[in-house]
């Protein structure tokens, strides 16, 4: 698939937050990312994620990158 086409990555942040009983605000404070950016991620509006942000998310949510992002249809 050419990189210019829209992506099909789905972020499961809201499911993971629900499963861990954590709020977006608490997660933002824990990993040092703004609520605005986490909101962008949660609402599927993100186009790219820094590895440092991904690492911090996985550490905070105690999950793997594959738990956080899946390939949609």
């Amino acid at each position, binding site marked *: 698939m050419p990189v210019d086409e829209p992506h099909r990555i789905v972020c499961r942040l809201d499911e993971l937050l629900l499963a861990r009983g954590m709020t977006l605000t608490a997660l933002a404070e824990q990993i040092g990312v703004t609520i605005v950016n986490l909101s962008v991620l949660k609402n599927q509006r*993100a*186009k790219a994620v*820094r590895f440092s*942000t991904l690492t911090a998310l996985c550490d905070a949510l105690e999950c793997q990158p594959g738990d956080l992002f899946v390939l949609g249809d």
Partner: protein
Amino acid sequence: MWRRCAVFNSLTYRLSLLSFIVMLSMIDMPEENDMARKSLFTFDRWDFLGTRVVLGVVALGSATVGVVVPLVRMFQGKPLTWQLQTGKTDALVTDQLTAKPGAALTWPGTADVRIEDAGVGTWLASIVPGAVLAVGTVIVVVALLRLLSSVEARAPFAPAAVRSLRVVGATLLAGAVLVTVAGSLANQVVLQAAADLHGEPSTFTLDLGAVVVFAGAGLVCAALAEAFAHGIKLADDVDGLV
């Protein structure tokens, strides 16, 4: 008069472009960065306002000095004044000073001319260089104001900004040539009206220094436009980056 106007605009063009380049290199850190510190060279809202004022003064000044004042003088029947390039040179002969042995004083051919009853054609020819300069100045100022608004809105890498810079570049390039040629043609018209050349052919002079300076500035603006166009692609790459 158009020469004074050209010198005024040359200085203010350089000042405006220089302040713009300094402004672009000193854009503030994003407001969400609490560690950002203001320095003497940080471009704040007062600097944006000041730049707008300077640009406005440049545009108004150019139109006033280049067009309005000469037209008013023409309609009032006042004498036409002009700094004439005669294209002639000769030894300087005057009672006010004498060359010492080993030195030579030469008249470079420039003369301040005053024509009491200049015809409409001569007046209009003398106004054309100032008018061309005024039009070019207004176009450049409007484009720079649009660019300033983009920068102030923290969205400098936008198609409108690229267009503004390309307009400035093209206007400076074309204006450099047009103003210089118009000035030289006007000089010829005034020379014919003011001086008797005793059958000698007149010399058509072109001030290439001004052409090189303004054309160079135009090329720099065109290059900046390409940098901004690349910036649009980079901004798009990080749009939505978490």
